[in-house]
């Protein structure tokens, strides 16, 4: 099952890309990474938005939790008012969980395609779909600059790149520092478990993946670097979009709009009295009046 639905399609996709891209395996990994990221993009965006949003409203969440700890119904109502859904936090882990099999599958796929032992290359022959001319692709050109993609990077360049790009990605995905300071003041040092996790992930993940890259084939490290770079771009985009949304919300609040479920609801304008009673009412005004009536 695992081989049939995860590893084999990846192996064949990598081989196809390798063939199309002039037998350049680094390019094949790069394009493959972009494709994987595109497939998981909706989930990733949702996860990042949800994470950043939850982090930003963390003080409000904690205040509501504290205030309404004996009244769960009211707590849920208040959460809704600030646009927070507790299940979103759990759903936020989903993209990460989905990506883990992709990552492990890709690891196996790269091992098979690079085939550094007869057994692994022979395994590749049994996984290739009809229509792919494997004989014309072998041996896979695993050389790129100083690297042999089937072996570890002996000069530590890739592990350093993996760790640094992953750290940058974590920084991009974390809330701004001044925001955090405010939260500390409000929530206390240990009052924000999400913040604690993000903070520890910021350092742990890069170190961990940098360490893994010391032991992994360089081809997989290339995937990590590419994936992180795309993650950085994605994170910057989401942050910008969130900042714009935040400005909009602030502007709307100043103009008297309400925020329901995190969405801006514009105030309904008062009906304008026309100087003449005989004057024809515009269609829009009619609609608005009808709406107001219904509301009442």
């Amino acid at each position, binding site marked *: 099952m695992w081989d049939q639905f995860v590893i084999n399609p990846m192996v064949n996709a990598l081989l196809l890309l390798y063939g199309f891209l002039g037998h350049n395996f680094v390019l094949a990994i790069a394009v493959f990474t972009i494709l994987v990221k595109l497939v998981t993009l909706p989930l990733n965006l949702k996860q990042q938005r949800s994470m950043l949003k939850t982090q930003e409203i963390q003080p409000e969440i904690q205040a509501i939790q504290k205030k309404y700890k004996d009244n769960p119904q009211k707590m849920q109502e208040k959460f809704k008012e600030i646009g927070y859904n507790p299940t979103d936090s759990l759903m936020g882990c989903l993209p990460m969980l989905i990506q883990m099999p992709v990552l492990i599958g890709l690891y196996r796929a790269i091992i098979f395609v690079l085939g550094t*032992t007869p057994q*692994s290359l*022979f395994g590749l022959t049994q996984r290739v779909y009809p229509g792919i001319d494997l004989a014309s692709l072998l041996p896979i050109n695993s050389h790129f600059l100083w690297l042999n993609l089937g072996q570890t990077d002996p000069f530590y360049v890739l592990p350093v790149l993996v760790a640094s790009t992953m750290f940058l990605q974590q920084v991009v995905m974390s809330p701004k520092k001044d925001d955090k300071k405010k939260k500390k003041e409000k929530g206390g040092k240990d009052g924000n478990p999400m913040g604690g996790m993000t903070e520890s*992930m910021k350092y*742990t993940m890069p170190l961990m993946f940098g360490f893994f890259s010391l032991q992994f*084939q360089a081809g997989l490290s290339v995937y990590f670097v590419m994936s992180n770079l795309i993650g950085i771009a994605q994170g910057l985009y989401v942050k910008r979009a969130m900042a714009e949304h935040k400005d909009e919300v602030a502007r709307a609040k100043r103009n008297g709009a309400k925020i329901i479920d995190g969405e801006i609801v514009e105030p309904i304008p008062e009906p304008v009295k026309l100087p003449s009673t005989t004057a024809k009412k515009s269609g829009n005004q009619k609609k608005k009046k009808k709406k107001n009536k219904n509301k009442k």
Partner: protein
Amino acid sequence: MFSLKRPLRWSVLLFIIFSGILLTGCGTRGTNSNWPGLSTDGQTVYAAYGKRVAAYNVAEQKLEWQFPITASTARIYTAPSVEDGRVIFGDYGASGGMLNPKSITTIYAVENGTGSPPATMWENKTATSGKVIPPPLQVDDTVIIGTNSNFIIALDSITGKELWKVEVEEPIWGQPVHRGEVIYITSVDGNIFALDIENGDKLWQKKVEFAIAGGIAMNDELFYIADFSGSVHAFLLSSGAEEWVVQADAATWATPVYADGTVYFTDISGNIYAIDAQNGERLWQQNVEHPLQSSPLIHDGVAYIASGPESDEGEGELVAYDASSGKVMWQQSTTAPLHTTPVIADNAIVVISQAGTSYSILAFNMETGTQKWQFLLPE
């Protein structure tokens, strides 16, 4: 007891979870493992099967010695080369340390008949950093080794001292062969090299269009290689000029075998072929159930083929064919797959089977195919 601060707790927890997923999910199979290697000196068989090399006396049915690899991450699957009581083999490299991405490959020479583990004659840790995949070739006092880091190395087989080294473009997986003072060797990218055994000087180099995973078969006049497109080529030993090419039904993987005017080879669809060594004319063709990555063993007019499913689960099969007609003489199934070319020791066909991490040596009667005995190798 001690308690951890919250961020540190998170870090430790995350580290354990991710390490667990990655290490259990990814494992190291494929990066550092291979089918077991098997060789013989006629009386004893030598098996390399991961963490150990074992010598088993077939006549006495006794484990002569086992050589455990001390480096925890190193593995050996190279069929040991045995000459004059010297057993030479190389490993797949051990990790250089937690923070060292370089691996250290060791080539070992041990002495037969010195107990278990046998006395180490020498260890060479500097000649190569790549896996030693093909069996080494001992010629007089020189041992020739092809490596996965694209080197052909000659060592003094008595001292382990490096004599010469030639760099090529791709890894070497096929066992070197020699004729007189010339070494013939293939690299995975389809190159064939003829080198002077004295100094490694390149006498000629020939390239076929497709990859070569196996080695070379030869007679006095021609040598034969099988490439990944399923073509089997015959070249003149003297110049490397191509004499003829024949096409198999699928990709050919294993080293062809020459015996009595016939070339025998297999393909990955489970076909076995016998062709005329002079002109490539097909004499017969047979088929087994499993893909074939091992070569046939030809002995006294019989071709023996060991096979098994690609994975290390399921049943294996040993079949004996009449080498001149291709007629099946007998066939035997085994409880575990057979991925390695059989050998003959003490008038028995000996194979090595693999079921997961469990390896066994099995001996069969050459005439009837009846299983004589089985020995489970120590883990």
